[in-house]
């Protein structure tokens, strides 16, 4: 491994096993996990400090995922992870559960600044080294399969590269007039919208965030996008936490806020103001909205630079890299994505899109899995497996179903796997799709999924003789799965596997 230069910056250009690009939470978590596995790596970032997008976004400062400063478990415990959806993972006690330490408790969701401080503290306490001010500029693949990342500081050669570069590049659909309209990322301080009519294009996270933030300032806020707001599904999503005030005000007819379903045809400039010309979707008919300001809140894309030329496939109009269950690019072996960009791994699409891979609580577990996968695939370092006493097998599974933060947060995406070749072995976590689709020894996978009736329920997948069968357990209203009834059900489901293993 290359050492530290005289100037104090780590990771000078050169040959490394893995190069991680970024210094936001996805990069910090991946780098930490690679380091703990002893995998040679470099971490480079164009920024000058850790924190990624939390250095400047969200614009109205409030995150949407909760962290409970008071919980039934110590902040340093694994159980606490289910109460803290913003902190990164670490083995060292002083680097665990850091976000609540910085919260002023005005809300149970941290502010941007609190999150940013916690990430900086994580980088320091978990000793994650990053070469800052080092901008990745282009990429090529050598004849031997190695990847070369060209940066402002020089070239980095590696077997595998992890891009934890976020979904951070402003994206606008091509609609006439949009080119002259500011994006969410260019929103001015709210005071500057005082007494003005503001039209916001987009009704997702960023659209509602801006609309909610401007309600105390603007004279009128009009939100427009083709898709209607599905209140029944949003009621179960984290964006409900703070952003649905504009919809509430419109639905109750309180004045000053309008939430419209309309396809935008163009935006005209008229006497120093704007006119948004649109066609209603849910209620067909022409619409014309006069506004002093228009803000386009249609989201972001992953800044992939030249990666598509190396075969990196994308979905959603080129905005998100399409990934395998282990977060490797579909089409470009050895190129992996971590952090928010790991949401392009489809997972098992059942009742819902599985997992929380686009937020810290989910991608912190993805990063751990990714580091293990890279160690296995590129460094010939098999996963650690431990034996499980047959007598404690059922208890291990019940514990998982009742408490596991991996299963509860990465719901439907991750599974805890126990194999039965030469007695029960703990295989750790793997993507559920991998378990149900890959061949392997007789095994059981424990998962937690959303049921069709919107309850959260445990599910066991049993692989025997190459065939996978699914066993849904009845959901318990208090999620208490360590009862005799569930114990008996697990014994019944596992009877054949345990007999074979014995």
């Amino acid at each position: 491994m290359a050492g530290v230069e005289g100037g104090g910056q780590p990771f000078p250009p050169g040959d490394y096993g893995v190069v991680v690009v970024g210094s936001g939470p996805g990069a910090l978590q991946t780098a930490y996990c690679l380091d703990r596995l002893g995998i040679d790596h470099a971490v480079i970032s164009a920024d000058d400090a850790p924190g990624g997008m939390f250095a400047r976004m969200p614009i109205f400062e409030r995150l949407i995922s909760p962290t409970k400063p008071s919980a039934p478990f110590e902040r340093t415990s694994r159980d606490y992870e289910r109460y803290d959806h913003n902190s990164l993972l670490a083995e060292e006690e002083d680097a665990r559960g850091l976000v609540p330490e910085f919260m002023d408790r005005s809300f149970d969701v941290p502010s941007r600044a609190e999150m940013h401080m916690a990430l900086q503290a994580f980088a320091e306490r978990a000793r994650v080294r990053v070469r800052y001010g080092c901008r990745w500029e282009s990429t090529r693949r050598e004849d031997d399969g190695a990847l070369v990342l060209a940066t402002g500081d020089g070239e980095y050669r590696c077997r595998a590269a992890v891009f934890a570069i976020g979904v951070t590049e402003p994206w606008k659909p091509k609609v006439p007039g949009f080119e002259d309209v500011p994006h969410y990322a260019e929103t001015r301080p709210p005071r500057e919208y005082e007494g003005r009519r503001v039209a916001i294009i987009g009704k997702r996270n960023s659209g509602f965030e801006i609309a909610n933030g401007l309600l105390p300032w603007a004279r009128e806020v009009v939100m427009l996008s083709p898709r209607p707001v599905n209140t029944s599904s949003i009621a179960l999503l984290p964006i409900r936490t703070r952003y649905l005030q504009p919809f509430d005000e419109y639905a109750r007819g309180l004045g000053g806020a309008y939430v419209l379903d309309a396809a935008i045809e163009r935006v005209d400039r008229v006497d120093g103001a704007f006119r948004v010309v649109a066609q209603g979707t849910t209620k067909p008919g022409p619409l014309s909205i006069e506004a002093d300001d228009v803000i386009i809140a249609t989201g972001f894309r992953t800044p992939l630079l030249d990666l598509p030329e190396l075969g990196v496939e994308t979905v959603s109009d080129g905005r998100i890299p399409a990934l395998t269950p282990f977060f490797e690019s579909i089409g470009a072996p050895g190129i992996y994505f971590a952090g928010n960009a790991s949401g392009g791994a489809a997972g098992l699409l059942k009742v819902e899109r599985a997992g929380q891979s686009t937020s810290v609580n989910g991608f912190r577990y993805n990063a751990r899995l990714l580091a293990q996968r890279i160690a296995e695939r590129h460094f010939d370092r098999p996963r650690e497996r431990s034996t499980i006493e047959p007598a404690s097998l059922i208890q291990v599974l019940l514990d998982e179903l009742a408490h596991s933060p991996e299963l509860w947060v990465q719901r439907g995406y991750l599974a805890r796997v126990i194999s039965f070749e030469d007695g029960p072995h703990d295989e750790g976590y793997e993507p559920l799709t991998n378990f149900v689709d890959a061949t392997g020894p007789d095994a059981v996978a424990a998962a937690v999924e959303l049921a069709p009736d919107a309850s959260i329920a445990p599910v066991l997948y049993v692989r025997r003789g190459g065939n996978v069968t699914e066993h849904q357990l009845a959901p318990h209203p208090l999620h208490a799965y360590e009862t005799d009834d569930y114990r008996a059900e697990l014994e019944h489901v596992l009877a054949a596997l345990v007999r074979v293993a014995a």
Partner: protein
Amino acid sequence: MAASEETVSVLGRLALFADLSMPALESVAHTLDEVAFPPDSRVLRRDLSGAAFYVIRDGEATVSIDGRTLATLGRGDFFGEIAVLTGQPPGADVVATTLLRCFTLPGPEVEPFLIAHPTVMLRMLQDEARRLRIANTWQG
């Protein structure tokens, strides 16, 4: 997911959505998610509960039971709707044979989607009727 004019145009060329007005197409484009699967990966899994509805944007897939291919699917073809509408696990596997890009809708959203877009429901029904006729012809 906000959608580009390219996605709207692609959707408009698929038979299932051919009767939709431009604003309705835009609404549909914003409602569907997009997923991609590498060759040889399973998209729909026989006998596993829960399924989403898929419409192929690009690529090919096969419908198979125990490795026996029953049908080949390509651009504009759709699958998963029978499992969703009957509430039963899929009766066959759908496996990507090339890089496969699909528009997708989670199972619980399918029924309200079809009610909101009756011309899509009619197109789907016509397709199901054709499939049923072919199946009956084979058996006859």
